[in-house]
């Protein structure tokens, strides 16, 4: 069946990236704080598996630290999206057709209308670049995604008989949303979460590529790419390593998301159930 293969491959790749990030909290092959300019741009060797960058720092260590930033920013951005988006979606579904529903939906369309990268630049221009502002900038554009998703799923659930039974049992819309609807849309949120997580990694890379993501000395893949870009003819490995790492991480997360969707997909579950 298709599901396990993408689940396994996705799981393995994401696992590797996560462990690298976790391990870099404690240990990295070389201390990236010590610059050794004399060593700069050495190609991959036994000492430095992925070579050295333009300040003489070990690229593998930089990538591991960069994984920390990417994962933290992308994860928190998804957190912002779910924490704000899901309740909004549930509330809109509970008040379907009412003013709240209309307002939330119009608000969603408006946020979607704004060009995401431009708003990210504006936020960092106002509050200064940095990981926190990148989280806010990316998070804002996750909110409508989760709001729309949870509203759609909740609307179909509101029509089901077990919700009628709960209303006959005297439960309020809020309580029904919390006890009945939220548990049944968790699968969708998890699957969409992984997709938005991978998009978050890409967005963080783009932001730091134009200099607005995490600032030095915190490492970031996007900035590594921007610094290495001019050296692409001189030392291609410096530009290739971060690019490939981003591709692998996003690919891993997307495969994981696909695998989870097939695993938790209600339709398949119903067929099995």
């Amino acid at each position, binding site marked *: 069946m*298709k599901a396990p293969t993408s689940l396994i491959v996705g799981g393995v790749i994401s696992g590797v990236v996560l462990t690298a990030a976790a391990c870099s909290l404690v240990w990295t092959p070389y201390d990236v704080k010590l610059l050794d300019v004399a060593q700069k741009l050495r190609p991959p060797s036994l000492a430095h598996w992925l070579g050295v960058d333009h300040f003489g720092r070990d690229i593998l260590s930089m990538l591991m630290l960069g994984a920390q930033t990417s994962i933290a920013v992308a994860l928190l951005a998804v957190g912002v999206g779910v924490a704000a988006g899901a309740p909004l979606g549930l509330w809109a579904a509970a008040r379907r057709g009412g003013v709240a529903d209309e307002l939330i939906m*119009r608000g969603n*369309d*408006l946020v*979607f*209308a*704004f*060009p*995401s*990268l*431009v708003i990210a*630049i*504006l936020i960092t*221009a*106002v509050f200064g670049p940095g990981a926190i502002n990148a989280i806010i900038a990316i998070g804002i554009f996750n909110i409508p995604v989760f709001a729309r998703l949870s509203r759609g799923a909740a609307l179909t659930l509101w029509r089901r008989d077990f919700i009628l039974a709960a209303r006959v049992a005297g439960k309020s819309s809020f309580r029904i949303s919390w006890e009945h609807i939220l548990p049944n849309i968790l699968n969708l949120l998890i699957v969409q979460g992984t997709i938005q997580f*991978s998009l978050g990694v*890409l967005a963080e*890379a*783009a932001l730091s*590529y*134009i200099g607005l993501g995490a600032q030095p000395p915190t490492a970031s893949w996007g900035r590594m*790419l921007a610094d290495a*870009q001019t050296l*692409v*003819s001189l030392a291609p490995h410096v*530009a290739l390593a971060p*690019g490939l790492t*981003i*591709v*692998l991480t*996003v*690919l891993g997360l*997307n*495969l994981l998301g*696909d695998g989870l969707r097939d695993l938790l997909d209600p339709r398949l579950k119903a067929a099995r159930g």
Partner: protein
Amino acid sequence: MIRYLLGRLASLIISLIVASLVIFFVIEIIPGDPAAYMLGVGAQPDTLAALRAELGLDVSKPERYLRWVSGMLQGDFGISYTYRSPVSEMILERMWVSLPLALYALILSTLIAFPAGIYAASRRGKTGDFAVMGLSQLGVAIPNFWFAMLLVLAFAINLRLFASGGFPGWDKGFWVGMHALTLPAISLALPQAAILARIMRSALIDMLGEDFVRTARAKGLSRAQALRRHALRNALIPVLTIIGLQFSFLLAGAIVIEKVFYLPGLGRLIFQSISSRDLIVVESTVMLLVFVVIMVNFAVDIAYAAIDPRLRRRR
């Protein structure tokens, strides 16, 4: 049908008004003063004050907002602080790069995604399906600015088939312009094609499971005919929404690509105006982009009604 469109038009106008308020008052709180940026380090306080007066920066915010909105309604976005020329003229010049680039990338993406999505859906579960889905996963995962860099390295520097960037202008001929936009369009189109192919595939698979496709097969239509004549048209509705969203992203989201190919597009205009605190330009450009996105959504709604009779008469 008319009532349906009138309803949409009303909500559209409200969104525009709300958008203009949000844009103006968010952007106005950006610290930094355009006059100081222009006169640089050596300027005296009195020259700064004089320049600020000339640029009309000393007027209160609400009044400036009203002046900006009333100007906008007559198509005049005001005068840029740093460029000292009409903002509408500058935006028009940049629009001549960003719009064709967005359209070019959208067409490329659709031309790739439709056949790929249909092929994958019709061979669901077989190797063909895996191959297309695998490629699309890769396409989504590659950051387009990195892909652009590789394209420049391969085709501009080494094979010299394309210019490394820049835009010669349409007056040098349509094909010369398109030639210059080819590499940027490809790097923009790749991730969008990957996304669209996946959505096309899943929409088609959903439709193939519907009863009316089984009815068509029972009539004697072959699998391919049933897909083309019945499933495809129904699958267009979800796909259309995505194409609408993609167009608005391509128009505004190409900032990074414009940087790599040093194209004089809207994205770079916004980026430069923000760093030089030319706020009147930033506000007008973002407002225009929001306006285009809302109009594109409105066009997609009309397309819905054209495709789906259920929306036409009864609503």
